């Protein structure tokens, strides 16, 4: 077993995070924005696990478990909100949803 280089793991996490960020900024469908948020959360978890493998400490993996729990809670609430938005406005496009009440 050879070590996976620390830098390449971090670079991969950064690339994945950047792709998720681009997805949030570019896409206008709200489901795709939620998916891109998931990609970003996963990339940050990858950075934590890479650091945990670099220093051989379990803390990074514990942080990944916390990120996992947070992602599950966030997805359930976000998807319920999406259902509610779709029932009220009949669209998932954030440009048409940009007006607030008031």
């Amino acid at each position, binding site marked *: *077993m*050879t*070590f*996976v*280089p620390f830098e*390449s*793991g971090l670079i*991969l996490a950064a*690339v*994945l995070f950047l*792709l*998720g960020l*681009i*997805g949030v900024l*570019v*896409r206008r*469908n709200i*489901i*795709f924005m*939620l*998916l*891109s948020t*998931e*990609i970003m959360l*996963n990339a940050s978890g*990858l950075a934590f*696990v*890479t650091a*945990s*493998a670099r220093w*051989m*400490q*379990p*803390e990074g*993996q*514990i942080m*990944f*478990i*916390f990120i*996992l*729990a*947070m*992602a*599950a*809670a*966030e*997805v*359930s*609430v976000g*998807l*319920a*909100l*999406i*259902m*509610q938005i*779709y*029932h009220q406005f009949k669209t*998932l496009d954030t440009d048409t949803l940009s007006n607030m009440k008031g």
Partner: protein
Amino acid sequence: MLIIFYLSAVVAVVSTLMVITRKDAVHALLYLIVSLLAISIIFFALGAPFIAALEVIIYAGAIMVLFIFVVMMLNLGRESIQQESQLLKPRMWFGPVILTLILIVEFIILFSKIRGQHYPALSISPKVVGVSLFSTYLLGVELSAVLLMAGIVGAYYLGKGKKRILHRYLANTESDSKAEGETK
């Protein structure tokens, strides 16, 4: 080991690129599952087998199923039938299948390589993670339990919908009065 890491890194980046460029939500979800599997292989190569299993079970298993359910519930109507027929075309599932085949080959290579050796030589075992999680970070575990509870309650409240429950008699009189108003 290194080549496996780089190969699955390429698979992860390519499939994530496909996620943010697809038009159809189901195709994007398919590619996102491939990306999560690739990251799971990377976790395995990094020496975190427990986290790799959690990634497959919770991310690719539970969270993606939630997404697929919501996409299926939102796509009711005539367009969904056209989408179904398009999903069955080979062009649609060709890319994910190729990427997943690469991952399967990597997985087999990893397991055949480590069968003779003692794998957890360089890895952090689930036991260490569990002991640290339930001793040092017990407060975090309880806080995440509270967060999950809040998530369940919030999802229930939001998904409940606004149903007005009227008695049958009241509902009839309301519709009758409305009909009378229209006739007047």
